[in-house]
């Protein structure tokens, strides 16, 4: 079989570093990986919002969003929640271990079209992973954008991802962030409540602003409602969809929402587009 252009054949990558973001049954672990093939590593390019199929030979593959911006360097990051067989096996991997990677897949956040605008990200739980590349991209091209505001929440402070990175933002005056947890905890200095309520508390102006939200479906639904209440137009709101995926290239069939494939036509959708797809919020 021809070696070239086999979209099912993955690259082999080596795990360089891992971080245990959260613990428990649905623990989240972040992997920093480097593609083994030097030429492919140098030529790899992805855009914020794209995904990759990562896996372990003998176990299987899962579609995971690439949680780093291409501006960070010649490596990839994946933040993986332990949920099924493949993600369980991924959590058992340590630095030096190998994984398979193919991609990048899907469309991306139109970050270049957003130049000159305020960027507002609204994340919940593992939903911060696909938002992180936007934040890093904007930070790397800071002069091209106006305000950068982050709203992020999780059930408890222990369930928040990227805690050190949020803390590091205290040193900067060009990024502001707001954190929330669902239930009061001793020593917690930020908001207590749900992310959609925190959004109303922050009360961002829709003027020249793009709002991007990722998180559990129930959170997204209320965030969308609240953004409308804050007078954001459908075109100013972006989110991502996720569905079960196997091929990543619009063939295997299962990730469709009506006539669109999340793996090809998504995962990024404007609210204006989503409203026209009957199955989008199923």
């Amino acid at each position, binding site marked *: 079989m021809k070696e070239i*252009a086999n979209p099912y054949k993955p690259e082999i990558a080596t795990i360089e570093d891992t971080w245990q973001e959260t613990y428990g049954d649905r623990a989240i672990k972040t992997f920093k990986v480097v593609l083994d093939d030097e030429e492919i590593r140098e030529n790899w390019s992805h855009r914020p919002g794209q995904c990759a199929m990562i896996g372990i030979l003998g176990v299987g593959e899962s579609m995971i969003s690439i949680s780093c911006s291409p501006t960070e360097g010649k490596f990839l990051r994946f933040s993986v929640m332990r949920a099924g067989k493949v993600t369980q096996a991924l959590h058992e991997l340590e630095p030096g271990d190998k994984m398979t990677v193919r991609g990048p897949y899907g469309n991306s956040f139109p970050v270049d079209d957003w130049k000159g605008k305020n960027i507002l990200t609204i994340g919940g739980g593992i939903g911060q992973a696909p938002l992180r590349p936007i934040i890093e991209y904007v930070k790397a091209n800071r002069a091209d954008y106006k305000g950068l505001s982050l709203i992020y929440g999780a059930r408890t402070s222990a369930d928040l991802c990227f805690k050190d990175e949020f803390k590091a933002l205290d040193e900067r005056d060009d990024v502001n962030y707001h954190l929330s947890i669902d239930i009061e905890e001793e020593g917690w200095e930020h908001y207590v409540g749900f992310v959609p309520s925190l959004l109303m508390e922050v009360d961002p102006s829709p003027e020249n602003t793009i709002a991007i939200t990722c998180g559990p479906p129930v959170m997204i639904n209320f965030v969308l409602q609240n953004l409308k209440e804050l007078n954001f137009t459908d075109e100013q709101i972006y989110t991502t969809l996720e569905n079960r995926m196997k091929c990543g290239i619009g063939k295997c069939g299962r990730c469709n929402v009506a006539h669109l494939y999340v793996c090809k036509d998504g995962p990024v959708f404007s609210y204006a587009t989503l409203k026209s797809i009957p199955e989008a919020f199923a």
Partner: protein
Amino acid sequence: MERMKIGKEKFGDFLAALDKQLYAPQKVGETLRFVPITPEDKLDLEFSNTTVPPKSVLFPQTETLYRYELGKTDLNLPDDEAEKVLLGVRPCDARAMAIVDDLFSWDYNDPYYQGKREKTTVVGLACSDPEVNCFCTSVGGGPASTEGLDLLLTDLGEVYLLQPLTEKGNNLCREAAEVLEQATEEDAAAAEKLHQEAAGKIVRKVDTEGVTEKLMELWDHSLWQDLSRACLGCGTCTFLCPTCYCFDIQDEAEGLEGRRCRVWDSCMFAEYTLHASGHNPRPTVRERTRNRVNHKYSYFATKFGKIACVGCGRCINLCPVNIDILNILAEVIKEAI
């Protein structure tokens, strides 16, 4: 190339003249399906249609993507495909190949499917005796339609008429030139008459005009609840559909030998869309039935400009609870404004 003919008693000589791996319908247990044959094998082409469509040769039910040794990272791709001849393909199933071609060449080329497709010559067999649930004439086909075929055979009783349609078809006739005779005007006229008679025997019909839009208008209509209630989720309608191509990708390992393979899957299975979180965007037979019909008659048509149904009738014939896609479409047409 001109039409040729061959006496049925010499058909084995025709096959023997072809230096290719031959596939033809054979009974395997209770099912009729395409399997490798030799020119000496007894051929029975007196069937209405096979149980399993010939997609099983181009898109096998289980197909190795690559092999590996556990603990190592070398990926071994399968060998190049041999030249194949698919023999006795019904025109509906050949049209299905032309439809599925679009999917496997959309955006990304699929080297596994295309590798087989390019090396395969499809020899069709015109229908003379359509089944009760055949409706090819309603979806752009017919008992002697040639789309997707390289060569069409018509059974004229004592002889087969051979109508080459593509360069691949011409090549087959050239390879077997010694055993073929030139067909006469009368042979061609007799074949034409048979084709028209066969078309006249198709009783089931549906008007597909505007159905792509009508289906989307009826997204939340109660007909989906009513017409899907009996569904057992067995997946037969999709596994045996010649235009269904959905697949899963699975790793298999035994000892140190591992492979990543793709296997047929079905949108009628609950697990097909089940997230690891437990959430399922298509949680019941209602959503899954709607997806099956919409995909064939609306989503695929929106994306590729053609309906992904060839009217072979298998999903109707083989459904254990008599769910009938023509009844569903009739209801859609009736309810749409």
